[in-house]
């Protein structure tokens, strides 16, 4: 097999300007995905897999881990950059929960826009809009990406 994972065209800092929409993504999440994330992350809080517990604490039902949403959203940036290791800083605020139905799935839409370009540092700030059914679920979601 080939060991060349990088897309033929990696983004180049000089070609980017504030306001450019560089990537979008649509990500589905169902209950099985949350169980998988619980196991992979070690976060077994029952509100992410047990309907009864979620309702007992006043939620409409099972909700996604905020950290799942954060982790899933940044895959759009990593894929655009062509290298997941160049995301040097990434922060979010968790503003609204993502309810995950059963049966079915929730859909999370991600739009990545250039928020700042720092030519001296060789980095761009990518601002993420992350929404579930039109409602923003992450606030101030920003990833700093090192480009050549």
């Amino acid at each position: 097999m080939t060991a060349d994972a990088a897309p033929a065209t990696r983004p180049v800092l000089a070609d980017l300007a504030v306001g450019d929409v560089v990537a979008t993504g649509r990500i589905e999440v169902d209950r099985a995905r949350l169980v998988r994330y619980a196991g992979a992350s070690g976060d077994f809080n029952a509100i992410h897999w047990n309907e009864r517990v979620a309702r007992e604490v006043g939620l409409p039902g099972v909700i996604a881990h905020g950290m799942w949403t954060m982790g899933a959203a940044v895959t759009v940036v990593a894929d655009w950059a062509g290298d997941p290791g160049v995301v040097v800083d990434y922060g979010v605020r968790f503003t609204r929960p993502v309810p995950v139905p059963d049966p079915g799935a929730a859909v999370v839409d991600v739009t990545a826009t250039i928020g700042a370009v720092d030519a001296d540092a060789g980095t761009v700030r990518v601002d993420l809009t992350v929404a579930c059914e039109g409602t923003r679920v992450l606030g101030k979601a920003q990833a700093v990406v090192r480009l050549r």
Partner: protein
Amino acid sequence: MAVDPGYAGREYPPTDVYEVGREKIRDFADAVGAAHAAHRDVGVARSLGYPDVVAPPTFAVVVAQRAEQQYVADPRAGIDFSRVVHADERFTHHRPIVAGDRLVTVLHVDAVTERAGLAMVTTRAEIAGEDGEPVSTVVSTLAVRGESA
């Protein structure tokens, strides 16, 4: 029991070593839908200049949350997890985490504030290699509702 503001400024001793495994990285990548081959294929990771498969950007939460247990699971800290909401999270990577890393974390409680029945607790996990090389800084804020809220 209310959140104890006296924990602000506390620094915990370094954790035991967390050894980053390839399969753990692959499982985490699968869970968040991180499709890039550098999470799974050592050859691809090496072609990008990394010594082994690369962790997704939020993988450090696995390491940080283990360290945070020292604080949040301390009954005297007063953090009732049934009343906790995750408010924000930030990762600063001094370098990417890769399989084979042996990581040691020092947990800091940066702030404990309370207003209108809501306590905000900010922790900072400084993740480093066994040799002290800085790897990642993970800052996390939890909101803890008061008994009446």
